């Protein structure tokens, strides 16, 4: 507080001066107010005169009523009073003059005093101001001194800082130098390293080449594997075709057998016919002999002619009969030949149909496989859109596969029906063998479908196997999937296995309910195990 006051001497002085001035003005005001009251006092004196005048008038009235005589006295007195009044007035005037003079003098004196006081005040003010000025100068000097000191201090500080900075810079430079040195060392080390590295790189390149070769080998292996798979698929296809061919052949053999039986039967019939014919002939000869005997017995020479005629006629008749019979046999033989021919043609047509169907299916399947392979390739390279499309196509493909399977099934069913319808004498072992064939085929179809719908999670070890049990509805719809056991506890992996089976639903089943039942009756056991890379 005090320091603040000292710091602002000038302001404080000014404030004091203002206060003093105000005080002075107030004082002057107070001096003037009594003078105003004095001026007001003069009319009061006049009022007093008026009051005494009224008294005189009332007195005069009373005096007039009592005695007129006294008028003269009164007049004298009045005269006297007048004189006195005049004298008083004069006196008063004189007094007034004196008073005025005195007042004049007083005012003059007062003014003088005032002026003197003012002068004194002015003087004190000036003194004060001078003091102020001095103070200010002193302050200024102080300030300047302080500033100079601060400046000096700052300069010192700056110098110190600069030095410090310089020291720091030197330190830094030293550090940098050190770092550079280290870097230099590092560089030489790196150069050395590089040299070694270059050799290593060379070695690595060789290794890489080796690796590339290995990779190529792996690639080739992969190709080989895929080729193998293709071959396997081909094999399977071939097997199916062969099976079908076998069945065909079997059928043919059966037919051949039938044909042979028929032929035998025909031969037998022919033989019987021949026997009958011979019997008839024999009978006719017998009859003729009998007739001849009779004729010989009954008739004589004339009759002989008749007999001869009769014989002639009969011979003629016989000839005709024979001829007729011969014609009939010939016609029958011709018809039979024609029938055989027709049969051969029919067989050929059937075989043609069969092979045409087969080749058509073959082409279809090949196209399908090619398309699937293309889809797979495309799927790998394209993005999500492609994936979506692929899944769509996959769906279509699976549908088509189903259709295809259905067509196959129909064929198979027909075969089955034929097999069934042929004869009860067909061997049971043969039936079981065929059943197993159908079941194996459908097992392969299901495997393919589940395989294609299995999306393994990324970044998971491959050698995880899962044992899964699946329950189906009669139509092949998956109703329950139980992941019994996985060799790793990875939840995502187990989920993928489960989802694969659900995604493949409905599973294709043999059209023969008897065989389909084998898939439905028990749970199917899927063993998921990715092939090693």
């Amino acid at each position: 507080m005090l320091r603040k006051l000292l710091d602002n001497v000038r302001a404080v002085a000014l404030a004091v001066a203002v206060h003093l001035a105000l005080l002075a003005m107030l004082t002057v005001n107070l001096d003037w107010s009594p003078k105003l009251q004095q001026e007001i006092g003069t009319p009061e004196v006049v009022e007093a005169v008026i009051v005494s005048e009224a008294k005189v008038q009332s007195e005069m009235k009373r005096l007039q009523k009592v005695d007129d005589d006294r008028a003269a006295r009164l007049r004298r007195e009045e005269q006297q009073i007048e004189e006195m009044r005049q004298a008083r007035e004069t006196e008063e005037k004189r007094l007034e003059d004196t008073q005025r003079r005195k007042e004049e003098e007083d005012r003059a004196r007062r003014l003088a005093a005032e002026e003197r006081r003012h002068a004194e005040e002015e003087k004190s003010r000036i003194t004060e101001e001078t003091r102020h000025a001095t103070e200010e100068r002193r302050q200024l000097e102080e300030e300047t001194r302080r500033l100079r000191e601060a400046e000096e201090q700052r300069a010192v500080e700056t110098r110190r800082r600069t030095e410090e900075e310089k020291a720091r810079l030197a330190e830094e430079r030293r550090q940098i130098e050190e770092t550079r040195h280290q870097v230099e060392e590092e560089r030489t080390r790196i150069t050395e390293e590089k040299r070694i590295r270059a050799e290593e790189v060379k070695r690595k390149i060789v290794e890489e080449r080796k690796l590339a070769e290995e990779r190529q080998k792996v690639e080739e292996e992969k190709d080989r594997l895929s080729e193998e798979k293709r071959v396997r698929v081909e094999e399977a296809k071939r097997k199916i075709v062969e099976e079908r061919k076998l069945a065909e052949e079997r059928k043919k053999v059966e037919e051949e057998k039938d044909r042979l039986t028929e032929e035998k039967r025909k031969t037998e019939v022919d033989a019987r016919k021949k026997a009958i014919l011979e019997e008839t002939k024999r009978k006719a000869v017998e009859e003729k002999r009998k007739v001849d005997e009779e004729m010989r017995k009954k008739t004589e020479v004339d009759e002989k002619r008749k007999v001869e005629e009769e014989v002639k006629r009969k011979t003629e008749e016989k000839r005709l009969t024979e001829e007729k019979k011969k014609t009939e046999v010939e016609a029958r033989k011709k018809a039979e030949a024609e029938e055989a021919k027709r049969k051969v043609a029919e067989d050929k047509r059937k075989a043609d149909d069969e092979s045409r169907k087969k080749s058509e299916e073959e082409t279809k399947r090949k196209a399908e496989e090619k398309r699937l392979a293309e889809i797979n390739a495309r799927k790998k390279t394209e993005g999500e859109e492609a994936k979506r499309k692929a899944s769509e196509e996959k769906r279509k493909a699976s549908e088509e596969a189903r259709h295809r399977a259905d067509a196959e099934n129909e064929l198979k069913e027909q075969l089955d029906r034929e097999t069934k319808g042929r004869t009860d004498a067909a061997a049971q072992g043969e039936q079981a063998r065929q059943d197993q064939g159908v079941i194996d085929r459908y097992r392969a179809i299901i495997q393919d479908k589940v395989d294609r719908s299995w999306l393994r999670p990324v970044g998971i070890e491959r050698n995880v196997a899962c044992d899964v049990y699946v329950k189906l509805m009669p139509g092949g719809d998956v109703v329950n999937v139980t992941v019994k056991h996985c060799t790793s506890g990875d939840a995502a992996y187990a989920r993928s296995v489960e989802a694969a089976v659900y995604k493949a639903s409905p599973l294709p089943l043999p059209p023969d309910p008897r065989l389909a039942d084998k898939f439905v009756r028990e749970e199917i056991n899927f063993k998921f195990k990715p092939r090693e890379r």
Partner: protein
Amino acid sequence: MIVFKRLYLCLLFSVGIGVSPVQALTIEINGGQEGALPIAIVPFGFAGTGPSLINVAGIIAADLRLSGHFSPLPEKDIIAQPHAAADVHFEDWRLLGTENLVVGLVQPSGPGGYTVQFELFDVFKGIRLTGLSFTVDPNKNLRRVAHQIADIIYERLTGERGAFNTRVAYVVAGPHRGRYNNSYVLQVSDADGYSPQTILTSKDPILSPAWSPDGTRLAYVSFENRRPSVYVQDLRTSQREVVASYPGTNSAPAWSPDGRRLAVSLSRDGNPEIYILDLGSRSTQRLTNNVAIDTEPSWSPDGSSLVFTSDRGGSPQIYRMPSSGGREERITFEGTYNSRAQFSPDGRRLVLVHGNGSTNHIAILELGGGGLREITHTNLDESPSFSPNGTMVIYASEEGGKGVVRVVSMDGRTPQRLGLQENDVREPTWGPLNKKIEE
């Protein structure tokens, strides 16, 4: 009639044949195809007035895609817009081949607040797998809720914890054209790069931010005091203190798993060596002692050992030693340069910067044997850090002369640039897991 006849025939046959010797139906599945799981995330419904505040489904889809394990259906291919179980027709989604489906709804609740609900379905089984409803305060981050939902979906479908509702710290380098006062800015954002918060700005470089295990503090190296010093800053109070400012360099802080100690590299006794600094007593314990540079320590998750970078063998390589001191053994032998190793959360592998002469990439080293595997092929990759669930790696790299931050899944399949708004971002580091929401 024909059917009956056939059945009758069949019956006859079955009687005739009996149980045929067909072996038990076992089918081996050896193929399959490796790939990301297709999932459809239907845009969430919004029951309030006006447009929805944020695209919750979009955030979930981006999170799941970032993990590399999922392939969310593009929004344009989403054929129906159900928001609840009653509207879902599984057949539609089966046709698209998506194994899983997510639907949800955002509803206003209370003044300025929201309720967010979602449901997850198994499309082929036709069942609901999980679902949850969240109440969001007006001042809370709605994006956070979307990340939480992504975490729940991820865990339900993969069996591993999700790490989408987490944070990352990084340093942004200037010039900022008036955005920040200083050249170097230390920031923390959501794991997808959104909602950034500035922690510190400085005219001098800031390096090596490191999260405390509980996620409340950051340790970092700042050059503000002329020489690099290690600071620890509380993220809630912004209070900070210098914990290491010895002569020479003080660098590369790494928190011990219990959060009580820092492993640091100090050059106070000559050249940089590994020390352990007790944050309570401020005492230091020297671990390494040789003429080479030893730096960039990282603790194993059980706290028993440390890995660090050392050039004692001529080139920078990774070494390992017990955290109590003892024998140091070299563990990287491939490449001319291996540095900045960090343990995976399960302690079974390391992520590190791997150089082979020309450029540096991020690689994974399997500690149980199995060698080094590069997972990035971008330019000048550095500063790798595991996501707290160990399935992703965040790292810095260069693009057009600027530092960018990328996230890559462990198989290196989906390197994606983080949606950070800043120009030149460096030194990213992934924070710990947040508290789990119970379903």
